[in-house]
């Protein structure tokens, strides 16, 4: 890929995560699932987490959306792995944007969606837990 392309608005990291997204796919027996967005708006994210002893040991995603939506999904699943549920809840959309070396202003809403998907998955996990984590 040359440097000269329409998509120079995206950082190399965004492009890398778009082309080789981490943790794509559904999860069997997830402990928490978060589904956010709306196909009408052009963005849907599904995030699955596996939790053991209060720690997120695995995360996966499926996303319908633009390159920024796919890259933020990929990045957020990388960021939560190995974190405690409490730590994961503190991951903000800003942190995801920073980890991707920035997003164009019109795409920042994609990172908000990623944060929302993560929060929804954790909430789902908490609701499903027989005891408070």
């Amino acid at each position, binding site marked *: 890929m040359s440097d000269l392309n*329409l998509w120079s608005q995206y950082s190399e990291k965004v492009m890398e995560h*778009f082309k080789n997204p981490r943790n*794509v796919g*559904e999860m069997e027996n997830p402990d928490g699932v978060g589904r956010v967005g709306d196909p*009408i708006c052009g963005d849907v994210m599904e995030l699955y987490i596996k939790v053991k002893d209060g720690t997120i040991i695995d995360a996966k995603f499926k996303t*319908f959306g633009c*390159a920024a939506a796919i890259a933020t999904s990929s990045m957020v699943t990388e960021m939560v792995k190995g974190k405690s549920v409490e730590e994961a809840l503190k991951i903000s959309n800003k942190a995801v944007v920073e980890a991707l070396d920035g997003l164009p202003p019109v795409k920042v809403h994609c990172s908000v969606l990623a944060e929302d998907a993560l929060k929804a998955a954790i909430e789902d996990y908490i609701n499903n837990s027989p005891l408070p984590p």
Partner: protein
Amino acid sequence: MRRIYLDHAATTPTRPEVVKAMLPFFSDAFGNPSSIYFYGQEAKGAVEEVRTRVAELIGARSEEIIFTSGGTEADNYALKGAAYANERKGNHIITTSIEHNAVLEVCKFLEGRGFKITRLPVDEHGLVDPDDVKRAITDKTIIISVMHANNEVGTIEPVEEIGKIAREAGVCFHSDAVQTVGHIPVSVDELKVDLLAISAHKFYGPKGVGALYVRKGTNLVPLMHGGGQEKRRRAGTENIPAIVGLGKAVELAGQEMGKEAERQAYLRDKLIKGLLEKIDHARLNGHPTRRLPNNVNVIVDFVEGESLLLSLDSEGICASTGSACSSASPEPSHVLLALGLPAEQAHGSLRFTLGRENTDSDVERVLEVLPGIVARLRAMSPLLKTQK
């Protein structure tokens, strides 16, 4: 990497013959056509020659051609000019829901200043029903504006029939012909238009120049006031090199467009057939037969247009989408929504528009690359399983 450009509806490369024709008019034949000495008259001669050429291409008279800065100015001048010239007669304008923004935004502007706008719907292929036009006419109607062919889905509108209706009703008729002039035959008498917008860079001319056809006897209030250029209809020193470039592009289009349209229509049909065969859950947008020879527009379900474009760009293929994700606006293409497509499908649209330099191997390359891209993105898409 070999790059394949398939976005000719956005713009075309200026042909070398056009550039060559323009060059002497920067530094050698640099005169101002309003000057009476040699240099001025030399430039004036060149401009008038182009005027005749443009007129010939569309079956008009040379005094009916006004040069503009492009299609947008031509549409603006036509609509604002005719609206204000006829405001004592009425304040109603009829247009369609699939016009280019150069028409829709002007209508919105006029709406805010007391004009009433009717935006006619289209059918699932993007066709306007001439009977709808007829029914919408009131005694206050002063302009009807219907594009000759749609820039996104390529549907060619029944402009001839609408022109007949407009003429019978005595209403000024404008058509945005930016996508057709230089590509398919356009005759202002057959179409019965009073105003017609042309843009040079859509048919291998330079950017920043176009023309408005104004039928003799059609009154327009000028947009630009100043000097007496263009018979006081458009003030400002003429952009001579660009106008000369427009003239060369018109000349070449006149010679080649018949054969070229046939060649591109063959490539178009090959691309459509291949895409629909190789990709399931894909559909053609626009009319199956009444369509521009170079336009392919498809919906690819469960994936979003920008990620398709970006993946294609990585393979050197340049295309376009109606998805909102490729622009700053939250809404997907107004044209696809007007065709009745749900928003989530409109986000997955992909447009390829062919041009002179495209060949069979370009089409084959798209057909080789796109199915894999779609499969990769669908494997990531949460929409596929829920709709299975």
